[in-house]
């Protein structure tokens, strides 16, 4: 077994410097690497490019990095729910590249799996395709999209072990597995670090080979963005 465990977020983010490109898991505020984000705020790392489906809300998630003007560019599929984001984007302070959600997921997976590029139909005939190569296969048009290149990938899992094996919970899984092994260094934070050997090898979502560093996170807030309920009848 190859041990990937580090004691805390500070050690896990070692080597992270200004200007780097990062992947961050999560959908909305669900399954985001809260500890890594908090540590980035503490480090005050600047001019980072974030590949992340969303950009958090004003005072949580990636919004915390936006507040401190740490983000130079966002690559996302949807960036609503964030006033400060809007302000920085309209002022030109923040660069934003919007791409289809499935394209985002698959450009991560391509990086993980060693594919240089993929052909996807998403965005054909729209401004997303502008300047990109297009091609017909069996009468349907596709866009060539390249694999992402990132320095760090920050993911959040439910359970993990020192070997780097990960299990995600419910829809907090989302982009997290696709970003594992898709950057030079993948840092996984888990709610619970369990002893090696206690996870069923048959039920591991991400084998440890895709993870370089793992630590047990602290104080997860797991904020709910849109609390919707039904009434008991």
């Amino acid at each position, binding site marked *: 077994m190859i041990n990937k465990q580090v004691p805390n977020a500070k050690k896990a983010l070692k080597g992270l410097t200004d200007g780097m490109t990062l992947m961050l898991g999560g959908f909305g505020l*669900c399954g985001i690497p809260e500890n890594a984000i908090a540590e980035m705020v503490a480090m005050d790392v600047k001019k980072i490019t974030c590949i992340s489906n969303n950009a958090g809300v004003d005072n949580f998630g990636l919004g915390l990095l936006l507040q401190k003007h740490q983000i130079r560019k966002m690559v996302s599929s949807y960036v609503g729910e964030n006033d400060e984001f809007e302000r920085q984007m309209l002022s030109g302070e923040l660069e934003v590249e919007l791409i289809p959600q499935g*394209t985002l997921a698959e450009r991560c997976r391509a990086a993980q799996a060693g594919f240089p590029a993929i052909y996807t139909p998403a965005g054909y005939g729209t401004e997303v395709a502008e300047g990109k190569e297009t091609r017909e296969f069996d009468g349907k048009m596709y866009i060539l999209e390249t694999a992402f290149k990132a320095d760090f990938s920050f993911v959040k899992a439910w359970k993990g072990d020192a070997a780097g094996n990960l299990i995600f919970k419910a829809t907090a899984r989302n982009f997290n597995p696709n970003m594992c092994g898709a950057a030079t260094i993948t840092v996984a934070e888990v709610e619970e670090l369990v002893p090696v050997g206690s996870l069923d090898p048959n039920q591991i979502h991400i084998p440890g080979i895709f993870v370089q560093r793992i630590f047990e996170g602290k104080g997860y807030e797991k904020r709910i963005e849109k609390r919707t309920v039904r009434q008991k009848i």
Partner: protein
Amino acid sequence: MLDKIGIAKRIAKEVKNGYYVNLGIGIPTLVANYVCKDIEVEFQSENGVLGMGPFPFEGEEDADLINAGKQTITTLEGASFFDSATSFSMIRGKHVQLTILGAMEVSHNGDIANWKIPGYMVKGMGGAMDLVASAENIIVAMMHTNKKGESKLLKSCSLPLTGVGCVKRVVTNLAVLEVSIDGFKLLERAPGVTVETIQNATEGHLIVDGEVPEMDI
């Protein structure tokens, strides 16, 4: 003339036995409430869940269990969770049989615009471009005209496109229309709405072929 719930009810009739369905935000979300209880249907949400159920009871919300609209949800028996790449494999691979989504504009050749208004804050396309580029069967749920009273069923979309030649059917507060090579084919009128009213509210080419029945909701 239908309200939003009426549109949702009419679209619910398009959901057939054995369909996996992806519902967009807004009117489409309401459709789930009106699907016939006698058929087998599963709802997919592109953030990574199949077999979505209703909203949770108060106190039973789980921050780790949401839909693509970021709302807390529940799951039904037979549900499954998966990553985003697998989710879009379901969509791109045509395993999801029906996609229902809203639109700002639809053109009579099936183009759709629903993600960007120049001059306004652009929030992004989310999964909509993947959905419209992939689904075999796309139904648009929307009001027939915008707040200024202008037609949203056009000869050609004026807004930036989400997808080209992909919409199969449009259900509005006034009508059910099919996108054909020749234009919008009027299939049904909303209760009490005349063909003339629909014609006046439709900028794109409208095909009226014989008697047009009133919707049965």
